[in-house]
């Protein structure tokens, strides 16, 4: 059993963080012990499990529980979820929908970034243009005032949009992980 658990640990470590691996290992260790105490043979029990299938089927559940509070974690979770959704025939429609929503979210993030960048560069260019004009003090002051108001509003709006899309992406990750898990469980119960 120890050898099997080590193999499972090795497979899980390729996908999940240490804490997550520990949780999954203890769950399977407990489950095997329960089956042994109910009279099943160890070889039969271990034969009924496929390590790769376990790692794949557990992925949505693990992603759901993961905090995804850093960029690195969120990207890793997203990649794992997309891989699971697109590699399981039953989940492919869900995967396509998730991928479409992800593309939309990323496009919006890029658009927000572009607005921020163009506001900064445009603001500098406007100031450069203004410095060469023959306008009076009041006109220059008025234009700088309007520039600062427009600049701050544009960047505020873009930052809020960026943040809102981040939250939406996190929610999508959770919702689609849950859907994948539920569909997987439903499929297992039918089989």
């Amino acid at each position, binding site marked *: 059993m120890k050898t099997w658990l080590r193999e499972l640990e090795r497979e899980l470590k390729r996908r999940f963080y240490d804490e997550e691996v520990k949780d999954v290992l203890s769950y399977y260790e407990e489950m095997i012990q329960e089956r042994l105490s109910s009279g099943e043979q160890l070889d039969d029990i271990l034969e009924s499990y496929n390590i790769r299938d376990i790692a794949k089927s557990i992925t949505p559940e693990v992603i759901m529980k993961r905090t995804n509070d850093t960029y690195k974690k969120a990207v890793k979770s997203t990649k794992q979820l997309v891989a699971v959704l697109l590699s399981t025939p039953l989940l492919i429609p869900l995967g396509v929908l998730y991928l479409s929503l992800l593309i939309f979210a990323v496009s919006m993030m890029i658009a927000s970034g572009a607005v921020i960048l163009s506001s900064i*560069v445009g603001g500098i260019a406007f100031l450069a243009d203004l410095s060469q004009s023959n306008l009076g003090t009041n006109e220059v002051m008025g234009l*700088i005032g309007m520039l600062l108001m427009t600049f*701050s509003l544009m960047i*505020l709006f873009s930052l809020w949009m960026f943040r809102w899309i981040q939250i939406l992406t996190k929610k999508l990750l959770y919702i689609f992980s849950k859907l994948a898990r539920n569909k997987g469980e439903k499929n297992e119960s039918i089989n």
Partner: protein
Amino acid sequence: MKALTKLLLLIFVVGLVLSVVAFFGGLDVIGLRDFFNDAESYGDQITYTENAEITTINIDVETRNINIIPTASAELLVMYHVHEKDDWIVEENNGILTIYQNKELEVFNWFNFKFVPADIITVYIEIPDAWVVDLDINSDVGNVTIEYGELSMSDVNINSATGNVNLSDLDTDMLNIDLNTGNVHLDRVNVSDDLFVSTDTGRVSLDTVTALNVILESNTGSVIVDELTGTALTATSDTGTIEVKNSEITNQVDLDTDTGAVKVYLTTGSGYDLSSSTGSVTVTLTSLADLRYDLQTSTGDIDIDGDDQGNRHSTSTGSILLKVRVSTGNISIRVLD
């Protein structure tokens, strides 16, 4: 994030204060308007005068509107403004007048806060109304307008990437208009030969037009025809309504749209071939007596003068074939009360 939000709100308040102080300090609004006006980058108006009779006018401009105006005078005038980064050629050679404008590419001109009044970037061409000329226009960005009087031309070709075309009170032998993005409107135009109008994105509208074979195409945009007199009419649109009313077509009327309605109202023809993938077809005529029907709709109903005919209906008598094909939509044939 919170600190950044506070900083941006602070910048907004500073901007507001500066604006208010400037306003109460006597801000000169006209001075501000001048700041945003780029007219001074253009020189004074140049007028080119041509007394010799011109047979062909070739216009190739990059960033100008073209406005052609008939004049009772015996000389042709070209009036334009030259930008400091423009190349211009306006010259006559063997009866051919060439008007060429090219704008130098500005690599670091991504942020332009200035606008130019329309009359500065318009080339006005006054053509003696007694002259008959060939007109060939190529334009990248800009509108093309012929109006304010009656003008006769032999061939008119207009190619434009972005811009609207408005022609009115024009007599010509042939008329070809090909646009990428822009609307086309023809009003009181008489074409003695064929008329071809095509736009990728834009509306095509004809009002009181005479021509032989008329071909109208729009990928995205409606085609609206009112009072057309012609030999044959073919109108196609990928996405847009096609409407033909009060027209007299000697031969066939072919109207085809992928997404949009097809409407024929009081329009004569020797036959009609109407189709729409998604959209209804409505035909309103003064009489249905001579019609031979071949009507089919996959998802929808056929209604002939109030009688439901299911989704397929054909008859074998009648000299005028009315063929209609619809995938999703109704077919309605009505008699005007």
